């Protein structure tokens, strides 16, 4: 089966799915709970480094490492999110940006994260002694993605989703209805962060080598623009936004289109996304899939 699929395409799809998971987590924080985050890559990195440390440096089973990484990311997101969420909403973009920068510089300088070298030799997980192939890993990532889409869908319709909606629309009202707003904001941060932790762990075991460059501000900003352009607070929006904007530069690479210098593709990418954001804000502020009237839940009439 492996033979007739170009492994390069396979990788692109795996990375696309991982980016969608990242986008879903960010959308949970920013789209569903209304808390702007410019530091999402930090949690991606925490997930990736945690599983790398557990599986390489401590020698734990990769599956167990991934599980621990997700739990750690959940907890750290809550702890790191708490001070940011206490400040006034206008500062949240700045504090999360700072958080992202601090996290990246920690990855780059700390001993435990392998400093500037990063961590190498992150093992591929196995099932019954059989190491997953590329196709099997793609399948794994796909299943995880489906599960997380389902989780986000359920959460958005739960008591948590109701609290997030109220917080996003009017915090005073939310509090007046008995909603502990800080608690639910921290919870959004923690769950959204845990999504990024899953993505980071899946990424680490896919590439087997990680370094701090991956987990920087460029990624956080790119993700935010993907989610905003797709439409905040909708799952379809994130699927669309991340897919289109992630695949666009790849198309240029695959077809070897030379209109732009491939060395500057990241720069052009940022300019394009920035431009798209401005256009969206002007003409479709709720994103491609944003709807005007939103129903938390279809009304039941009887």
């Amino acid at each position, binding site marked *: 089966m492996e033979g007739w699929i170009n492994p390069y395409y396979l990788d692109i799809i795996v990375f696309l799915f991982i980016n969608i998971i990242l986008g879903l987590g960010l959308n949970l924080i920013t789209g569903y709970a209304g808390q702007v985050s410019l530091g999402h890559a930090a949690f991606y990195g925490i997930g990736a480094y945690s599983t790398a440390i557990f599986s390489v440096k401590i020698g734990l089973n990769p599956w167990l490492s991934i599980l621990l990484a997700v739990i750690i990311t959940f907890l750290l997101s809550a702890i790191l999110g708490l001070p940011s969420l206490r400040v006034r909403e206008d500062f949240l973009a700045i504090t999360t940006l700072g958080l992202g920068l601090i996290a990246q510089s920690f990855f780059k300088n700390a001993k435990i994260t392998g400093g500037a070298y990063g961590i190498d030799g992150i093992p591929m997980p196995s099932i019954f002694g059989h190491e997953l192939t590329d196709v099997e890993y793609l399948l794994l990532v796909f299943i995880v993605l489906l599960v997380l889409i389902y989780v986000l869908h359920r959460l958005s319709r*739960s*008591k*948590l989703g109701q609290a997030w909606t109220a917080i996003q*629309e*009017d915090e005073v009202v939310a509090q*007046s209805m008995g909603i502990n707003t800080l608690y639910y904001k921290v919870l959004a941060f923690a769950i959204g962060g845990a999504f990024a932790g899953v993505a980071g762990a899946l990424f680490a075991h896919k590439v087997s080598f990680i370094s701090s460059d991956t987990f920087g501000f460029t990624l956080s900003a790119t993700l935010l623009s993907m989610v905003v352009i797709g439409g905040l607070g909708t799952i379809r929006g994130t699927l669309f936004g991340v897919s289109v904007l992630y695949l666009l530069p790849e198309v240029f690479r695959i077809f070897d289109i030379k209109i732009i210098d491939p060395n500057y593709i990241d720069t052009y990418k940022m300019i394009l996304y920035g431009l798209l954001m401005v256009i969206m804000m002007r003409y479709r502020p709720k994103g491609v899939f944003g709807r005007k*009237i939103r129903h*938390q839940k279809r*009304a039941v009439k009887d």
Partner: protein
Amino acid sequence: MDALLEMKGITKRFGGLTAVDQVDLIVKKGEILGLIGPNGAGKTTFFNILTGIYRPDQGNIQFNGTDITGFKPYQIANQGIFRTFQNIRLLKDYSVLDNIKLGLFRQTKAGAWSSIFGLRRSREEEKKVAEESWALLERLGLTDLANEAAGNLSYGNQRRVEIARALVSHPEMILLDEPAAGMNSEEVESLSALVRQIRQQGTTVILIEHNVGMVVELCDRLVVLDHGVKIADGDPNQVVANPAVIEAYIGGQEVTEVVGD
């Protein structure tokens, strides 16, 4: 009857301005209390203190035997005090039904896990929330508007939806900030009837209102604030005949004219 709410020496300053000044208030269970006073008298500030949005600079609040001074707004709501806002605060892009369901938030328990796995408890709860919200809509004659975006409703209906949201969880006490503002006389009539119904269900009511005719007819007792100071407290007919109260209102109007508000 027992005192449900007991406030002592409540004071709130904004810089040099004392918006609420040493106010004492006792509210009995089952009462309909009117809170009146000229513009800027401190009525809304008083509600904001009672609901925890502002912390009083001085004073103490006892509710149902609990000291709730310094409680956060959500904690106060969970004690059973709900409110409406002078400048209506509905989730405008969401349906009327969603807005009312929000009022039942404190009564639902199903958390993340039981929602993710679609456990029976969370399904049953969802059903109960929908039924209770729907029942209240029926009672208020708003069923036709259930799926409308709240922001598209007429002013009067928005006020009713906001009251419904505050009411749906059967709170101990409900605070209404100028609920009749912008209503015609017919709507005011039906609002009065609704407030009486609210009391019937066992909820104590404090009502801020400029419509003096309405409050005199509706309330068991009136309290008057002027420049943050409580200047009268008693039987509605006697309070509105009180020279100090009349003076406060006329004086207030003069100030309004001079300021050209």
